[in-house]
């Protein structure tokens, strides 16, 4: 079995944990407490790795699997942190017909991660996004605030190298 535990080392602080425990304490006896606790936890940590889900499980008595089931059900929750550089590839219609799917695949291959994940060194995370309104430049990707357009698969390596 390939575990979905994040390969990015967990860097949670005692302050974050104290904040999360306070949230759990406030909400744990409410009906349907899990969703609000998870939303707060994601606010505190930015994502919901096993370490955070285990804190929630240990302090609410909710089985870890149940928490993981909810986290993987809703797209709003992430198991992976955002990297120092977030690469977003537009898979909107215009970009897609211009080949952004191949660019997205190439990025996954080069970075060694799947969409939604973060590289173990915490440098890059990769996401697919919908139309960013730059169809004239299709296919388009962004790295944090930088926009790259009229791309080919061969541009991928150069872009990564620029930030590495």
């Amino acid at each position, binding site marked *: *079995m*390939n*575990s*979905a*535990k994040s390969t990015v080392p967990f860097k949670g602080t005692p302050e974050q944990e104290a904040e999360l425990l306070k949230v759990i304490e406030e909400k744990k006896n409410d009906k349907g407490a899990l969703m609000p606790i998870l939303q707060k936890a994601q606010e505190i940590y930015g994502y919901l790795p*096993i*370490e955070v*889900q*285990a804190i929630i*499980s*240990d302090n609410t008595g909710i*089985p*870890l*699997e*149940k*928490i*993981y*089931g909810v986290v*993987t*059900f809703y797209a709003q929750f992430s*198991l992976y942190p955002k990297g120092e550089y977030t690469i977003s590839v537009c898979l909107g219609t215009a970009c897609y017909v211009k080949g952004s799917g191949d660019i997205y695949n190439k990025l996954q291959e080069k970075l060694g991660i799947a969409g939604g994940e973060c590289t173990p060194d915490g440098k890059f995370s990769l996401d697919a996004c919908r139309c960013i309104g730059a169809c004239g430049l299709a296919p388009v990707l962004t790295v944090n605030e930088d926009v790259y357009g009229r791309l080919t698969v061969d541009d991928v390596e150069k872009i990564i190298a620029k930030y590495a």
Partner: protein
Amino acid sequence: MENITVKINGVELEVPKGTTVLEAAHMAGFEIPTLCYMKEINEIGACRICVTEVNEGRGFRLVAGCVYPCSNNMEVLTNSPKVIASRKRTLELILSTHDRKCLSCVRSGNCELQKLAKEYGVEDAGVYDGVKNEYEVDSSAAHMYRDNNKCILCRRCVAVCSKTQGIGVIGANERGFKTYIGSAFDMGLGETSCVSCGQCISVCPVGAIAEKDYIQPVLEAIADPEKVVLVETAPAVRAGLGEAFGLPIGTNVEGKMVAALRRLGFDKVFDTDFAADLTIMEEATEFLDRVKNGGKLPLITSCSPGWIKFCEHYYPDMTENLSSCKSPQQMFGACAKTYYAEKMGIDPKNIVMVSIMPCTAKKFEIGRDDQNAAGVADVDFALTTRELGRMIERAGINFLGLPDEKFDEPLGISTGAAVIFGATGGVMEAALRTAIFTLEGKNVIDIPELRGTEGIKEATYKVAGMDVKVAVVSGLANARKVLDMVKSGEADYQFIEIMACPGGCVNGGGQPQVAMGIRNFVDIRAERAKVLYDIDKAMPVRQSHENPAVKAIYDEFFGEPGSHKAHEILHTSYVKRKVNEI
């Protein structure tokens, strides 16, 4: 309760308000097929196989019969062309993503999906074939594997794990077409706090989860002339095995089972019941010792390895309450490889100890630490009742035509107190029979208040001027309730029997699967338990301390119950685990 009138396929009947369409149809003599529905445990109306046409005055429409409540003057059609067409399409859709390796599937012949596909004449199972998810088989646990390629997402396993057992190590991950049943962070089941009870296997309608099969190495051991292959059978096996050969639920097949094991080539056919009697001697002694010497109370039984693992994970602060007695399976193996080996002049290394158990957790238990009295594993292979059924079938033994045979001596000698270990309350009843005799010299045999399938029973006995408060618990969600009460001081029991599976071992995770369509209406726990109480009633000796073979083993070998030697061989230790080992 208010009654309402419904008309099912033209048959008019009165049913209590709140009755579902499925239940009303059953009363009228029509069975509605189900795949996800488990009465009171999984009432989610998800699989849509139970769709039924109902008319509540606004014309007929399809509803999920398993959860839809009847209304007054409702008309129901359970077999209309529209119903049949809908069920057939649902089956085709389920089959479109199902790994249809039916030929050699462990469930072939008693698969609920296969049965429906046949009944509904699903000729072209591949009609909706398209993209399929491919899953790796999870074989990380000691007792079972999960092959999600065969999973139909009915969620029965999920419901039984979280609701009946209060554990919840499996659940639905992801969503939509990507949904699959698994554990958190895709950990293998063996990495989680799964207790190995196997209740999930008992309720799976298909072959997506099954016990790990050890028939082949057992056959190889039997074929090896160097090896002395001994077999022991747990009490509950004789109450369940017949179902694998089409006999009614609740048939005693002890004699045929012994005959079949002999014909399979085991050198000696022994009975775990012998070790159950031995357990009583050791556990009753331990109990009295703890009471007299201010030891940790309540004492909690240790026969059920699913319960033991549950305690270690979820109540690690209570492992001192567990009896240090090995389970009967392990005590048996320990005696076979020490006492019996010495008596017969066999090197314990040449003994292959096989157990037949209604249980999957026994497969985990044989690999535990501190279960090797003779320096080798007490038990080498733990097979389930189902595996024994398959072994007999494969060997071409005509089970139903077998004569009734008797267990071999001396380790096949047992009492009525031992055979009831297989039903919830049995261990407590057996222990009290011996404890009351030891303390007061009185023979109290039948203790009816400890019998029956309720999940939590309690009673108080005045023994030797002392109030002994006992509880009997089966099903781990019930165990949670009782343990929480003990921890909070709300309950002050001295002695608790806990069995992981609801109803005890007769309903163990290794027993033959009974289709949910039957289980929803028949209490298999009670039917099978009755077999054991009937055997007990007919036994000439019904108290463990009267077992002549048990007396002999103490005279010849252990000295007395609780002796140093008995502790070395018959007792064990526990570990403290975590719920979330990350």
